[in-house]
């Protein structure tokens, strides 16, 4: 039998087994699972939203919008739309990010419980888990776990005798980065092209199939049972900043110990990089870091003491994003790294709006030219132009502005590296 060792400082990951095998329903219940749901079902839905709002929980998908605020945009009055949806965004595809996968594979019921509580709070009658196609194991364990939840009466009609009904369906997406954007996700879920939608109207007004809908990230929803169990204050105090909770932080790149850790929100970038990731691997020097995945601005050594929370990272000129850092070392070409990212983003553009569809391939071609030694000095001006052309608000959604973040910061911090490519007519790292 699964042995329980509670670690309330790491609510999300405390029960995840060392081999990563999922917690079965029984195992999850033995850790206190589904107690929060039973508690929640005794509460007024608006009360749940209030607690989540007070807890300071912010969307863990990258945008960092207050979850409680998002839920409170749903009309749950008597005049409200009879059909509402809650969708868990498990389309984790941010370069460098692998945090949701850990939660999905290791503790799927934690997510399912979070979804049910969230659905109750917004009075949704149907919920979806929108899963990235490549997460095969997560697909398997979610299928098993949703089945178990139905059999145990946590899903379906009259959940735990409360009169509340909720169905849940796992949707395995065909896989586009674009689907991480909540409105594109909804289009994909409807069987349409994964193009984003213009806002307003927001999904809480006209979302999935035109009905009020809330889309939340896996990590966000996995926090919900713990907030209900332990209260908003407890959650707030978990963090080192005013933004509540823990965060799944990750590190990749040439660090000594790449990995994933649940840590108080707001620990410093240095602590994450040095204490947890073990600093640079032997023979490598630190040059910079993307603090929140591929679509965030580079930070430098001088930024290492920045607390890893939404507000502080923003102040330093980047974004917390998914909290999964990608470290750039001195033996890797920054132009090549940015090229690799831009090629990904260009490939993942849905093709709806002009700047993203045409601008990203253009930047990719320039970066390729730089890497192959055919770059020209004026190319830097053109790259600069693109960082303004694809600035937030100029494009239809956040994909291209996100794609510009590593580029614009690389141009700022690694300008000489770009110039070397042009002057030497080759990549100095090759």
């Amino acid at each position, binding site marked *: 039998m699964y042995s329980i060792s509670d670690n309330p400082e790491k609510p999300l990951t405390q029960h995840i087994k060392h081999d990563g095998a999922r917690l079965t329903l029984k195992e999850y219940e033995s850790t206190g699972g589904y107690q929060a749901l039973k508690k929640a079902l005794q509460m007024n839905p608006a009360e749940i939203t209030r607690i989540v709002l007070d807890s300071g929980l912010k969307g863990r998908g990258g945008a960092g919008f207050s979850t409680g605020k998002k839920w409170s945009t749903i009309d749950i009055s008597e005049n409200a739309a009879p059909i509402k949806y809650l969708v868990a965004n498990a389309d984790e595809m941010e370069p460098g990010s692998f945090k949701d996968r850990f939660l999905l594979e290791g503790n799927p019921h934690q997510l399912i419980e979070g979804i049910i509580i969230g659905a109750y709070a917004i009075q949704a009658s149907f919920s979806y888990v929108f899963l990235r196609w490549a997460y095969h194991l997560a697909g398997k364990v979610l299928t098993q776990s949703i089945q178990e939840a139905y059999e145990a009466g946590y899903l379906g009609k009259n959940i735990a005798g409360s009169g509340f009904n909720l169905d849940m369906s796992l949707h395995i997406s065909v896989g586009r980065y674009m689907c991480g954007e909540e409105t594109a996700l909804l289009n994909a879920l409807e069987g349409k092209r994964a193009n984003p939608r213009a806002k307003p109207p927001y999904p809480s007004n006209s979302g999935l199939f035109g009905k009020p809908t809330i889309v939340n990230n896996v990590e966000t929803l996995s926090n919900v049972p713990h907030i209900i169990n332990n209260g908003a204050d407890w959650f707030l105090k978990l963090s080192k900043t005013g933004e509540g909770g823990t965060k799944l932080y990750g590190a990749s790149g040439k660090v000594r110990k790449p990995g994933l850790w649940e840590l108080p929100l707001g620990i410093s970038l240095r602590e994450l990089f040095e204490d947890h990731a073990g600093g640079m691997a032997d023979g490598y020097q630190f040059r910079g870091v993307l603090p929140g995945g591929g679509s965030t601005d580079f930070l430098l050594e001088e930024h290492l003491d920045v607390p890893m929370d939404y507000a502080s990272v923003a102040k330093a000129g980047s974004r917390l994003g998914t909290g999964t850092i990608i470290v750039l070392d001195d033996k890797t070409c920054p132009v090549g790294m940015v090229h690799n990212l831009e090629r990904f983003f260009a490939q993942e553009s849905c093709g709806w709006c002009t700047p993203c569809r045409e601008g990203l391939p253009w930047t990719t071609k320039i970066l390729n030219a730089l890497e192959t030694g055919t770059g020209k000095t004026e190319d830097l001006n053109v790259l600069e132009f693109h960082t303004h052309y694809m600035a937030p608000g*100029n494009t239809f959604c956040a994909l291209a502005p996100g794609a510009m973040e590593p580029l614009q910061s690389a141009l700022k911090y690694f300008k000489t590296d770009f110039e070397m490519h042009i002057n030497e007519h080759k990549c100095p790292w090759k």
Partner: protein
Amino acid sequence: MVKLFIDDKAYEVDESKNALETALSIGLNLPYFCWHPAMHSVGACRQCAIVKYKDEHDTKGKLVMACMEPIADNLHISIEAPEALAFRAGNIEALMTNHPHDCPICDEGGECHLQDMTVMTGHNQRRYCYSKRTHNNQYLGPFVNHEMNRCIQCYRCVRFYKDYAGGKDLDVFSAHNDVYFGRQEEGVLESEFSGNLVEVCPTGVFTDKTLKKHYTRKWDLTNAPSICHQCSLGCNIIASERYGIIRRVLSRYNGDVNGYFLCDRGRFGYEYINSKKRIIAPAKLVNGSFAGITVNDAVQEIKAIISTENNMIGIGSPKASLESNFLLRKLVGPANFYAGIPAREGKLIRQVIEILKNGKVKTPSLNEAKAYDAIFILGEDVTNTAPMLALSLRQAVKNEPNEKARALKIPDWNDAATREAVQGATGPFFIAAAHDTKLDDIATQIYHGTPGRIADLGSLVAEKINRQQGIVSADAEAETTASNVSAALLAAKRPLIIAGTSLYSGAIIQAAANIAYALKDQGKDAGLIYIVPEANSIGSIMLAEQFLEDAFQNAASGEYKSVMILENDLYQRMDKTDTDNFLRLFTNIISLDYLENATTRNSTLLLPAGTFAEADGTVINNEGRAQRFYQVHVPKNDVRSSWKWFAALMTGNNGSTPVHLDEVMDSLIAAFPALQAIQSAAPPAGFREDTQKIPRSPQRYSGRTAIHAAENVSEPRPPADPDSALSYTMEGYVGIPPPALTPFYWSPGWNSVQAINKYQIEVGGELHGGNPGRRLFEPAENNKTEYFKIMPSAYSLKKGEWLVLPLYHIFGSDELSAQSPAIAERVPPPYIALNNADALKAGIAEGAIIEVLLNGNKKWLPVKLNIGLPEGVAGLPKGLPETSGVFFPFLTTLKIAGND
């Protein structure tokens, strides 16, 4: 109305619009691609970027897309802000990374919205120096050419084709900068409105394939404002010519009629005008074959005939103008003038005119039809009998569900959000027809029956709405259908009833009126639309008291030696033997027509008649709207308006012979005061704008001195046009002419069709000077029109007997357009359609050849199944050469091949 500041200048504007349409309506230039006034905003192309300020003190502002920006009171925006200018130029530069620089060989060149917008943004130097993405092009059928490499991904094509026109076989494929707009596989575009892609596409991806065969740049065309002659709706068109060849037809915007669009019959059906089978000079039958004669000889010859004969029969035409019909009537005398259609059709049209005149509900225009929220169609296959009405109905059906989006505070212009909220739902839409129709996909409920049963259902619906006649239902299906239909019509704000003459049933026409009257009596703002067969069915009938049967009968006495036939192949309309016998009675058979046909082949004298491209005149559409069409060019042959031939034949009779169009109209109105309004359908010939005539050619018309150089190096004087305020030159008034006289759209910087923005008071709305055309009939206030008393259909089929109904084909049922090569490719081969159960019982499979008795003649035809015909009912395509002269509906027996 609210106050809007654009670049610090204040405007009073309508807050229900977005910033782009508002700026364009004001007359400002702001480039755009994905937005279309009929399809609204989706925010994809990012071309209409402007700067929006928080308030009057904000100097920084923020870039927003004008098409997605709602107007609010005291909103401050800037079109000219440097960052907006730079962004728009940069956006064009980005679009150009994949757009080929092939303007010189592109059919769109010179009327390309992308060219215009590129110039407008000032972008002219490309920094992109890498390869462009390339695509394969597809064969899309005879109408539309595909060149995907030019695509700038504005998504307008699929938004028009799928969302607006209900098409299913054009879509967007792939992603990122590889997105592809086309069909899943090559093939003929199925939509009857595919040609609009040519005008909707902002560049040269979708171009007119018929134009390509005889290509001419826009600036080299001579154009005329015209009216489509290929069904009864009277869509406004621009027809264009160079070197004596009609090159293309475009939609001419009329906010009351067709708006921005046309059907494919209307757009591509013009090519018969260029046919080698055209009659281009007078001809006389000499020893069994036609010999060309001069115009003068022909006129003298016919004048001689007229002066020796007291009586000559004149047969008019529903395809010909009021003026031509009228002058023939005047020439032969009213007693000898006959409408060019059989009585059974003529009486139905008279019935329709009677209801238009004296009925108590409004007949909405094509545009107004879009505003109704519940529809009931009786007996018409609208997509095939009045295609553009089907397009209007596809918009009307969105009204009821769109209320849901409005309740979510989504503005009407936010197209994607509206469609998302509505989820493809359609409002109440009921079809009672003889078979499946192309509108079935949006129908709430469909009822199939014989014409009699459809009329019975209509009577029952009227009865359920407003009990009048104590009608009881005949069967359960009719009962439930009628209950559903009447409940939905009563629940609607603006119910619309549609019927027509296509099934030759007076009872259907009357039942439709009864429903509309009943709704009106229940306080509903009901509409009633009738579809009639031809462009001037209404107008030509208003000028005639007698029909073809009367002519055939009256001529039988042998007292007439001559007949004059106006633009009419009698063999299309009457039985072959009867027509043979009729024509045999005459020594002189004078035919005025465009193309060789069975009647011209049996004539003794031929006069070349002008099609709408070579004639001026007035036609009256199905709603009773009189509209003028103008000659495009003066052909270098003897073709001219038929009324001009009649005028020439009448000169010398007395001094008051009308010679010019306005004189013909004066004379017509004197004889028919009820038609007074036709005079104001367009300005008279003496009209001048700023003392000048309106040029048919744009200022940049090239090669004028070279065109005739092979014949004569001195430039000939351009032909005069005494019949209209238009001139056959590029000189004249520069600016916006009256709408009825607009030969092309152009405005500085706007060379594409989208220059139409500058001709409208408000984009997408009424034209400066008012939408052209004059409605002749409006319902009177407090009209107490009686309901029709309709006898229930008593008809039941005998065993082994089939009721054969006409089946209409947008491509095929119209005799003239079907002779245009592109349309001809789409005309179905003849067939007979049967009910599936009947066929099964008789052991007949799809494609089997069976014998059909048509007017006493045996015909072998392949069988078509699965079109939803009721038991005992068969269908034959109407208007094909094989079915010409067939009187529908008729009863017949069928024989299976080999089972004789």
